[in-house]
């Protein structure tokens, strides 16, 4: 193995790399709101007046404000990402790009990069712990963030790979997440960001009574469906209600004396506690949501970092989520056909994106949406969602505080539940219950300037984004 050339400041980047010629550049979002790499790299692009850039960040967070400056300078042609919120998302909702916005899924992004449909020129990879040969891991160093899952496809396929690190060690790393053979440069900086920033407000278990009620109903649903048995697999994400379901399941599992085979996706303290209590055999971790998860990656051999491809790429032979029994997911809107929107609000403003939503809903045996029926007078259920993030054919159940609706396509589930005490309703009945309180909202006019596409995990376009 050869040692990689080291660059000592962002300012030297243009001397080493032709940033004007290589327009397609990618980033990962593992440091979430604590990341400073994206802003610092893009500062160079601003200084150098690089035009017609195509950005491929795996997600865009509120802290990534440099993108906003480049947008205002008209330096960006297109943006491809899996999730975005904050000022950049607000801006893009109103101001069309010269190119377009492409919203992908975690699995779909990896798939498209690995099968060469997406050409990445430069991958800028924030890496907390790097050896001179370009090997990197994410769960050691001073700016740790855990799994590096979303950056691995980028490292394998980008023409130029730059690791940005604030911890360069002397000895060779064994068993790295990023393999040094793909790496071209190491950029050494004082800090790649703030680990605390990975903890988002949503990774708190809910104590809100409505959330608690929804979680309780969801737990009953899982039990009544007969899914709670030895060796089951589960993904909950980090939403407050989902985490409450996880906690409830833990109690049930202890009570029944059963264990789960694996949990996947984003990992939190709650999942780690269950691993350490022997309630689950393995954690497949594509992203750490808190510090406990990072610490666990370091010490628990059954807690394994995986790449986005191994996580959710439908073409990956080792895809983890194809063995998933249950996934719990959120929704900002759901419609009569069970299509789910987590990409825009009901006014069409971009507030999120699929992430692994559409991937896990497609693969898991049962996908369950948990959400309050009404949020600030806006009913969850629409005749048609503003934007389709996940197609209704992949969604099986909806649990709200006022009842449970099962997708009519899942007659098998309906049959199983018919003799139980669960409050089953049709999705239209649930909507009527909501209208009893809110009244029917005025239908908003559909906007007509198309500004982007929503892809499913096979990269088929399933809906569009419109200018607000």
């Amino acid at each position, binding site marked *: 193995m050869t040692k990689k050339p080291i660059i000592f400041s962002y300012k030297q980047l243009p001397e080493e790399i032709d940033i004007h010629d290589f327009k397609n550049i990618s980033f990962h979002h593992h440091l979430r709101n604590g990341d400073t790499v994206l802003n610092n790299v893009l500062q160079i692009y601003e200084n150098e007046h690089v035009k017609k850039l195509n950005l491929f960040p795996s997600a865009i967070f509120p802290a990534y404000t440099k993108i906003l400056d480049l947008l205002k300078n008209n330096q960006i042609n297109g943006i491809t990402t899996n999730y975005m919120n904050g000022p950049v998302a607000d801006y893009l909702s109103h101001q069309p790009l010269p190119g377009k916005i492409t919203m992908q899924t975690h699995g779909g992004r990896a798939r498209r990069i690995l099968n060469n449909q997406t050409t990445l020129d430069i991958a800028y990879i924030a890496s907390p712990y790097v050896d001179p040969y370009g090997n990197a891991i994410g769960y050691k160093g001073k700016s740790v963030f855990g799994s590096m899952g979303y950056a691995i496809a980028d490292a394998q396929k980008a023409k130029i790979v730059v690791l940005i690190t604030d911890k360069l060690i002397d000895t060779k790393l064994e068993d790295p997440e990023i393999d040094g053979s793909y790496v071209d440069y190491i950029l050494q900086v004082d800090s790649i960001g703030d680990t605390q920033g990975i903890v988002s407000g949503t990774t708190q278990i809910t*104590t809100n*009574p*409505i959330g*608690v*009620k929804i979680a*309780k109903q969801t737990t009953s649903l899982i039990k009544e469906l007969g899914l709670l048995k030895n060796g089951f697999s589960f993904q909950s994400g980090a939403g407050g209600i989902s985490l409450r379901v996880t906690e409830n399941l833990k109690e049930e599992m202890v009570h029944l004396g059963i264990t789960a085979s694996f949990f996947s996706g984003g990992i939190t303290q709650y999942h780690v506690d269950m691993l350490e209590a022997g309630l689950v055999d393995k954690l497949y971790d594509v992203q750490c949501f808190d510090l406990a998860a990072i610490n666990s990656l370091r010490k628990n051999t059954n807690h394994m970092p995986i790449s986005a491809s191994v996580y959710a790429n439908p073409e990956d032979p080792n895809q983890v989520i194809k063995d998933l029994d249950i996934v719990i997911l959120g929704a900002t809107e759901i419609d009569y056909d069970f299509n789910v929107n987590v990409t825009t609000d009901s006014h069409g403003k971009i507030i999120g994106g699929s992430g692994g939503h559409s991937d896990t809903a497609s693969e898991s045996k049962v996908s369950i949406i948990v959400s309050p029926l009404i949020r600030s007078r806006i009913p969850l259920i629409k005749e048609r969602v503003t934007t389709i993030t996940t197609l209704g054919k992949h969604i099986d159940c909806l649990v709200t*505080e*006022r009842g449970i609706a099962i997708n009519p396509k899942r007659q098998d589930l309906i049959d199983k539940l018919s003799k139980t*005490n669960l409050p089953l309703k049709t999705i239209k009945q649930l909507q009527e219950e909501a209208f009893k*309180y809110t009244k029917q909202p005025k239908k908003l006019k559909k906007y007509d300037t198309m500004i982007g596409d929503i892809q499913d995990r096979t990269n088929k376009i399933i809906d569009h984004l419109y200018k607000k």
Partner: protein
Amino acid sequence: MSRSFLFLPGNNPGSLQNLDIFNADSIIIDLEDSVTFDTKDEARDLVYHFLSKFMFKTPSIYLRINDISTPFFNDDIDVLDSLEFKGYVLPKATKESVISLSKKTDKSIIALLETPMSLVKSEAIISLKQVDAVLLGAEDLTTAMKIESTVSRQEITYVRSKLALECAAHETLFIDTPYTDKDDLAQLKNDCLQAKILGANAKSIIHPNHVDVVNTVFSPTTHQIANAKRILKKAETHQKGAFNLDGKMIDKPIINRAKNLIAQAKKYQLL
């Protein structure tokens, strides 16, 4: 017939419009302690418009109005009494204030006993025919007595026992004081069990997340249900008068109690 009486703040629209999802058998909409002095009128108007618009078969709705020494007592009743709800919870109840309230309404009254004097004279209040239930307010009581609340609740053993006995004597429902730590569900369960052992029939609640524990503890036991079923089965063949079951005399009041218990079990989805 309720196991759980959940207090919800009267000036909070978010709580009001979700009052039927928490699984509580009864809801007590609060116009007193949770409503600050300068928003009493806001809360009263809000509850008025809420109950005018939405009707509930379950849960049963009670209103905790302000006590008789405040200017709000009359306003609360005058504005709200015409609405559909089950009854009032009267704070700082005395024999005199219960009688005053009962002259103004035909609705059910739950007397909230929370002063040392009301506990001394509790039987006089419980024996009033207008009083359908008694609620122990231990927080105010212990504060007035200048004693600390303890986790073991040893300090209220006597008043719990006293009220349980007097309520049993007058066939009045005894509702226990709420448990105040919203996060400690394990200790809540202990508290419920202790109250039940001493003779409480139900418990008041100040956080929706407590409802399930309270409902579980105060539900009829499987043993009680089985016994009631046996009584009713035997009663089917003995149309008139008393009969003997397993060597015990079964008469009309016992049969009625068994019927109630079964109705309750059905309502709570235990059957």
